[in-house]
């Protein structure tokens, strides 16, 4: 079927170029080795002249330069190809995330319009439609946040209570996913003052909680911890017992548009922007974020560390823990 094969060819043509590049590197390495053997000054067939030594030396240098150049080009190409794939995955994911709730809204509107429905059925449909609108709104927000927080340091850091902010985010997440109180356990000091952008940090914490719930298995069990250390840094740790990930995937998860697995077999909602937004916000606060997972099916933990701690004024019980 010519059309189907043409389509698949036009979709991922660049991997062929990477293969050509790798082939060229192999050829260059073989040539270099051959040069080492044939042109070596101590070769038995020829006398050792200074000119020969010079030729050998510069020849070897040029070969090494050639290999280094090729490796550099292939690495750049590989990066481009990966970005390209991620971008097309992103378009695919956003298309799905935007169109699915729209399709659902349209279907329920049509149903309400064309069918005679009893009142309880109607209110059930309204509830479904409201959830679709929330989902649509969440996708729009994540795309907007990604644009807003990319490569931008916080313009005006203001004092904020990180402990309260995290507790609020936990409450909000519980409500949003209709979770029992003990599904997300939160341990935080009463107060933890920090200079930063409250709205951005709340977005970051909400994204982490969202992920923790989304990638949980049947039972949601998330632990959140907030603490300050002696170096003047505040830390927020969100740990889940969900699907986790392989160690090889850890370096990529903060990359824009990155999602584990093939998009066409998507099993979780999302656009691949969540962790990228979190990292952008944390970077905007000059902080760091680390991820850890013991392996697939064994949960994951994310730790955000932020500088800019404001020491508690005398007499305030900063270190006392509060449980929510």
């Amino acid at each position, binding site marked *: 079927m010519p*059309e189907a094969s043409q389509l698949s060819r036009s979709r991922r043509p660049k991997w062929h170029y990477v293969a050509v590049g790798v082939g060229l590197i192999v050829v260059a390495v073989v040539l270099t080795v051959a040069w080492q053997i044939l042109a070596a000054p101590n070769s038995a067939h020829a006398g050792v002249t200074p000119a020969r030594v010079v030729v050998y030396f510069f020849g070897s240098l040029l070969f090494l330069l050639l290999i280094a150049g090729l490796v550099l080009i292939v690495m750049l190409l590989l990066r481009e190809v990966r970005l390209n794939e991620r971008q097309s995955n992103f378009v695919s994911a956003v298309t799905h995330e935007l169109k*699915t709730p729209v399709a659902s809204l349209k*279907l329920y509107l049509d149903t309400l319009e064309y069918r005679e429905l009893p009142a309880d059925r109607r209110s059930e449909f309204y509830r*479904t439609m409201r959830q679709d609108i929330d989902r649509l709104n969440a996708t729009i927000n994540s795309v907007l946040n990604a644009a807003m927080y990319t490569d931008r340091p916080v313009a005006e850091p203001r004092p904020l209570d990180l402990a309260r902010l995290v507790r609020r985010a936990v409450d909000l997440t519980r409500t949003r996913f209709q979770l029992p109180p003990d599904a997300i356990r939160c341990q935080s000091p009463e107060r933890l003052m920090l200079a930063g952008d409250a709205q951005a940090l709340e977005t970051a914490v909400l994204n982490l909680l969202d992920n923790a719930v989304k990638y949980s298995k049947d039972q949601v069990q998330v632990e959140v911890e907030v603490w300050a250390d002696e170096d003047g840094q505040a830390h927020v740790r969100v740990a889940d017992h969900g699907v986790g990930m392989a160690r090889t995937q850890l370096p990529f998860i903060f990359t824009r548009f990155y999602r584990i697995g093939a998009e066409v*077999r998507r099993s979780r909602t999302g656009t691949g922007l969540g962790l990228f937004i979190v990292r952008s916000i944390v970077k905007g606060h000059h902080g760091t974020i680390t991820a850890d997972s013991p392996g697939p099916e064994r949960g994951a933990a994310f730790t955000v560390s932020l500088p800019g701690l404001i020491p508690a004024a005398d007499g305030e019980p900063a270190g006392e823990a509060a449980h929510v």
Partner: protein
Amino acid sequence: MSRILLVEDEEHLAAGIRFNLELDGYEVETIGDGLAALRRLAPETPEPTPPAPVDLVLLDVMLPGMDGFRIVERMRRAGNYAPVLMLTAKGRPEDLVEGLERGADDYLPKPFDLPVLLARVKGLIRRRDWTRGLGEGDAAASVRVGEAEIDFAGFELRRRGESFRLTLLEATLLRLLVQRRGEVVGKGEILEKVWNLNADTETRAVDNFVMRLRRYLEDDPARPRLLQTVRGVGYRLMQD
């Protein structure tokens, strides 16, 4: 009562579609996972009590486990020729063509209009019945074309001891050409009647299907005697 298998992982859509199909009198079975759908449509080992055969499959493309394109391909290879209507957010013409090429019978981009969905479902089931010769009109269940014996009811074509399974689209196209034997049938008309597409859709699907039919019917598919191309107009199935 016709039985419809709905393969859709988005709960809201699945519930809404199911609700409407049931109101229209169909029996609906829902599966939300690609691998489970494949097991249902193309079981690897025959089950002791085989489930009821489905009359129509509504298939999403993006599914956990296995995507819709591969499901339709695998079920066709396993010999399941139930009509498949693909539903997907990927609405570009290339996606549409890919779906049809892989063996789907119709394609509806999301978001869709409810009346359109219901009409397509009804249309596909009617078309299958028409192709089989079970529907209205004078359609015979079995026809001779050249040396080939076409059994529309069983979606089978036999020629010189060889037998070929026909997909719903192949059978419907053949049915249309048989019904209008001796006349030239335009490409636009074929797209409308067989594929349910606009007459001016840019696709080589018709040409590809005609080539496939020639492989079944002709001695030399490169120099067709029975199924001829009328350049710039369409195709004609010659009288014997």
